């Protein structure tokens, strides 16, 4: 049994490692492709060669980022098979489709037109080139669409039915999977976060040129485009973030409670604007969850349910259940889950023996309890709670930084409109310092989404422990370290190359 836990831990560690690495590069691609497309559009409209140079410079940085994005991306798709093979069978009938569509619709578009974007300047017409640049942007965003349809489904599985004969979930409605409200809000929130990151990237690097007093016209041009784009998209980021939180409240109340460190549910629940969790706090004790906190009253009820007076269940309520609020306790769910698992086994056995009457009775029992089947695999009720500190801090880091980005866009747009940006040294330094913060916010967002979903691979349906491949933990450990070494080596090269290209500057393009 211990071996299984070790295997699951290593499998999770490997997936987390590869996903976090991949996620260092994707958001920049999502946003920078659009920024570059906007710049090239200005070039084609005005015919001003300076805009062409600006476009080409950012395109050069995009290519460096794009290459490592591909390198870290290919593993993501195959890892579902290599490390989560039970998962691949149990939900592959639904999950495989968006991944395949992503390949067909998005990857080919990206890779085909990427070559035109880079090598086609003298081979195709100006307009055809511009179209190719836009198609790369659309392609990369389409890819985000399909992968987030898949991810949204993991958070809130819809549009399927469990088939006891094949022992898997099968798709019943493609449109339900596609228009899953969780997927829609996730997609919009994720791409807008990419636009924001790319804007921070362009502003920060341009600020460096302004500080160095070189390529100032180029830098100012870039800042205007990026801060307008950043401001608009961060407002969008805010609204889609609100919708995402609402979806979490509706479908993943335990995740919401963990994100807010809320142990005891309440009406008019507040959001902790700033807080330090008490590491000694355990579920069910009487310790206060926070050593220090500052709360905005009613805000969580409003954010989660769009109602100031709504009841937000805490971790304790969700475990112990509450008749008043119609919450089934985790032990009850586990009991029902165990009945479902046993009934499925009985159904299989009777069917094999040809005892159809018994089989149909077992099937009936199974169907009555199947909604809680995933809970049947949990060992103790506390297993249903994700890591509170990780969820809480990453959520608050993300929100706090997002707010700062919005402020930065407002200030930098204002000063670039008044043509004073280059004189505001403090702002230029802040802009440079904000680039890494953009990446921190990205990773934090991803951690909230994925670590907050634990223990589930598929919410309420399939715990991670059941989802992994049946291999030895040593094999996964070996590949984990190989990934860690290889990706780190590639990252170092990427950063060095990128910095060198920035130092060479737009004149070299």
């Amino acid at each position: 049994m211990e071996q299984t836990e070790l295997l699951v831990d290593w499998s999770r560690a490997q997936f987390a490692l590869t996903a976090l690495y991949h996620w260092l590069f994707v958001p920049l691609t999502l946003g920078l492709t659009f920024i570059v497309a906007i710049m090239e559009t200005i070039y084609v409209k005005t015919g001003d060669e300076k805009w062409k140079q600006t476009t080409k410079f950012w395109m050069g940085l995009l290519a460096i980022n794009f290459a490592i994005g591909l390198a870290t991306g290919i593993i993501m798709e195959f890892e579902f098979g290599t490390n989560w093979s039970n998962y691949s069978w149990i939900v592959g009938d639904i999950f495989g489709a968006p991944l395949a569509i992503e390949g067909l619709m998005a990857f080919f578009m990206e890779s085909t037109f990427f070559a035109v974007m880079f090598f086609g300047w003298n081979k195709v017409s100006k307009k055809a080139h511009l179209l190719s640049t836009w198609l790369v942007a659309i392609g990369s965003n389409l890819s985000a669409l399909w992968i987030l349809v898949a991810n949204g489904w993991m958070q809130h599985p819809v549009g399927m039915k469990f088939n006891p004969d094949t022992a898997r979930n099968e798709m019943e409605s493609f449109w339900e999977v596609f228009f899953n409200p969780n997927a829609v809000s996730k997609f919009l929130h994720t791409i807008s976060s990419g636009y924001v990151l790319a804007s921070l990237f362009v502003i920060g690097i341009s600020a460096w040129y302004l500080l160095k007093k070189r390529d100032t016209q180029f830098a100012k041009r870039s800042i205007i485009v990026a801060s307008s784009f950043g401001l608009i998209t961060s407002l969008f980021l805010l609204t889609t973030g609100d919708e995402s939180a609402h979806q979490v409240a509706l479908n993943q109340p335990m995740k919401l409670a963990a994100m807010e460190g809320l142990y005891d549910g309440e009406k008019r629940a507040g959001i902790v604007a700033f807080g330090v969790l008490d590491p000694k706090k355990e579920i069910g004790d009487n310790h206060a969850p926070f050593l220090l906190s500052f709360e905005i009253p009613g805000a969580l009820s409003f954010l989660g349910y769009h109602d100031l007076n709504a009841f937000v269940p805490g971790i304790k309520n969700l475990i112990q259940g509450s008749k008043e609020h119609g919450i089934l306790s985790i032990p009850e769910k586990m009991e029902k889950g165990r009945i479902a698992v046993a009934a499925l086994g009985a159904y299989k056995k009777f069917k094999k023996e040809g005892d159809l009457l018994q089989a149909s009775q077992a099937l009936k029992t199974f169907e009555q309890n199947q909604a809680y089947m995933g809970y049947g695999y949990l060992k103790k009720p506390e297993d249903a709670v994700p890591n509170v500190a990780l969820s809480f801090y990453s959520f608050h880091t993300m929100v706090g930084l997002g707010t700062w980005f919005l402020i930065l866009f407002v200030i930098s747009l204002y000063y670039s409109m008044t043509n004073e940006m280059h004189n505001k040294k403090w702002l230029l330094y802040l802009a440079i310092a904000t680039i890494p913060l953009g990446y921190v916010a990205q990773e934090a967002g991803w951690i909230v989404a994925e670590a907050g979903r634990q223990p589930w691979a598929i919410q309420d349906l399939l715990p991670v422990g059941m989802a992994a491949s049946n291999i030895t933990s040593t094999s996964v450990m070996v590949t984990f370290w190989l990934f860690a070494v290889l990706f780190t080596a590639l990252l170092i090269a990427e950063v060095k190359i990128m910095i060198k290209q920035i130092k060479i500057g737009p004149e070299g393009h």
Partner: protein
Amino acid sequence: MFDLLTLQQYWWFLISLLGALFVFMTFVQGGQTLLYTLAKTEDERDVLVNSLGRKWELTFTALVMFGGALFAAMPLFYAVSFGGAYYVWMGILFCFIIQAVSYEYRKKPDNIYGERFYEALLYINGSLGIFLIGVAVATLFSGGNFIVNENNLSHWTVESYGLEALLNPFNIAFGLMLVFLSRFQGALYFLNNVNVPSITARIKKVVLINFGIFLLLFLYVVSTILFMDGLRYDATTSVISVESMKFFHSFMHMPLLIVLLLIAVSALLYGVFIAVAKNAQKAIWFSGFGVTLTVLVLFLILGLDSSVFYPSLADMQSSLTIENSSASQYTLEVMSIVSLLVPVVVLYIIFVWRSMDKSQITIDEVKSDPHHY
């Protein structure tokens, strides 16, 4: 719409076609192993890298698409093979991870590890990567050590997790066959795409040697397939049993495949002949057509005529067929509608390819482009 078996066969055809197109596109990998054979100077090498550099992403994407299509249409294979032959698939993936950065980073200042390092990565991708893919594909004929339980969850029975396939001479030959195939295809691609006389002058010899070795391996592999014991499943009871010379019989049951194979081999031979005899630029199109069609036929013979496309060496009844490992009827229907996009994708790829390759690539062109690889 259609019955389940028709959908399963349609999807097996699409997977086969994707696999075939991928193998054709591995001329990129073959080309990567010829950087020091065909080019003797820095400039020549740059031309070769840039010529491949405009195509490599398509090959890469075809591989990803192949995985995606298997996941969506044959999820049980995806789970059994990827999660079982773990080391082989991971090896393949590592070989492709290192390819993805190499073109872009090779010539960039401050790339830390130096130009030669990235060229070595390209070589590993082109040789080891293709070899391992060949070994993995070969196991579709020779089998893997897996067991699938009554809930369709699977496990591998040996802890070498796929590496044991390297002990089978058929698998090794299959892998090497793909390596030499990609090499002569790479040379033919350069003949088509590159305009540097010194390089062109070296191509003939490379094609002859690599094609010669390929041909020997190909004859061994095909004759082994024709005369080996294969598995057949009973369409009504789903019981799987051994049949001697199964694939030979399947060819007899589907004479169309024999005709296609003959056309394929003729096209391949013709392509190689006009390359060697006349330095014909268009040789790659004939050989490429031949390669694609040959691989297509080999994949089809695995999936059709009640064949087993992934035999289990550990438990014969666990073996995979297109009927027992496919997605549900509904999902296959949805994906079939999606597959109507395939011609659109193929058309724009052809269109872009033609407009980018109107003229052959030269040393001057590469040198004058500040963004070259």
